[in-house]
């Protein structure tokens, strides 16, 4: 067999074998990977709308998905927005819950971030950042408090800045404000197809 032929045969057969192997691995794992992602978001929705038992996607565009949360009886409890902020290194993916009137944030939770460990990464930390979002008034845009103060001293629509991570804090804040504006517009335009909203 000539060297040329041998090279072609070896490379082709290795390519075919590994291709087949990868296809089967993909078939075996892809459902599980998709369901992992789904479960993560689902758990996050339940987490940010207190009392939710079932959640449902009601609006979707790139980096902006709205879910509604309902209790056992099917009463609407609120909305959750899953969106992304432009972080220091990469997108900060997070989700936050709103009441039905879109006037109050129930809580905010970070799903994925690659901020600087020890500094910006604190945006995913309950004590350093997330706790300040609970129950914030959001009929008007929220603002950041810098330097940070005790939780009780914050105004109704004010959130503490993380010391040493102003960029990351600001990124989340402006993204939340943008998302709020967007969902309010969607609601006014009747584009949120909320169903079962009879508030019995």
């Amino acid at each position: 067999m000539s060297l040329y032929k041998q090279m072609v045969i070896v490379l082709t057969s290795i390519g075919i074998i590994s291709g087949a192997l990868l296809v089967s691995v993909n078939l075996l794992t892809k459902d599980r990977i998709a369901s992992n992602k789904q479960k993560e978001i689902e758990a996050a929705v339940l987490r940010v709308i207190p009392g939710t038992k079932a959640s449902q996607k009601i609006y979707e565009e790139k980096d902006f998905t709205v879910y509604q949360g309902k209790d056992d009886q099917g009463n609407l409890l609120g909305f959750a927005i899953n969106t992304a902020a432009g972080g220091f290194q990469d997108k900060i993916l997070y989700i936050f819950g709103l009441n039905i009137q879109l006037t109050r944030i129930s809580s905010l939770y970070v799903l994925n971030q690659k901020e600087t460990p020890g500094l910006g990464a604190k945006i995913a930390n309950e004590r350093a950042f997330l706790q300040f979002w609970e129950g914030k008034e959001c009929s008007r845009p929220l603002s950041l408090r810098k330097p940070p103060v005790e939780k009780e001293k914050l105004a109704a629509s004010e959130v503490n800045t993380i010391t040493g991570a102003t960029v990351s804090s600001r990124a989340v804040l402006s993204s939340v404000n943008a998302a709020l504006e967007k969902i309010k517009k969607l609601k006014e335009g009747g584009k949120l197809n909320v169903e079962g909203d009879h508030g019995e």
Partner: protein
Amino acid sequence: MLRETMESRSPLQEFTKGLWLDNPVSRQLLGMCSTLAITNAVINGIAMGLAVGFVLLFSSLLVSLARKFVPSQVRIATYIVIIASFVTIADRFMAAFFPPISKALGPYVPLIVVNCIILGRAEAFASKNSVGRSIVDAMGMSAGYIIALLILSSVREILGNGTILGFRILGSWFEPWIIMILPPGAFITLGILIALAFQIERKAKQRR
């Protein structure tokens, strides 16, 4: 590293050389990119070590099996295809069964394809040795790599976060040295560890 060809090592020596004498991290200085990048937490170090070990073992096995058929002109291409296949398998497997770890390691799992430990062992060892020897060599190298990652990531996690495997071991009096979990901390720790390893080796040689 070039000692491989002139050999008459017992299987045990073939294994243990990866742990110390030819340790991929401290002696061969291979795979530095992933070593530096993912050792900010012990759990990441373990996961990365196991993933690299898996890929190294299977690609050494296959490269050694195929060594008689692969013309030397296309050997690197062949190795890369073999390695890339196993890396993809490891990547999908982690994403399916260990999503948090897969998330933490991010792009560094796919990047195992270009980890020089694996290509280095394929080229320098598996392509010239029997299947049995190649497997033992791969296990030794993986063990050496995992040990090095464990030491590095333990030092960095303890000093940089006060925890080990997520458990707090240093009290609240301890102000974490954030630099240790940032990239400079990786270089500092690795530099000190390599210096220590060389120092120990030199002392041992003097005694002999």
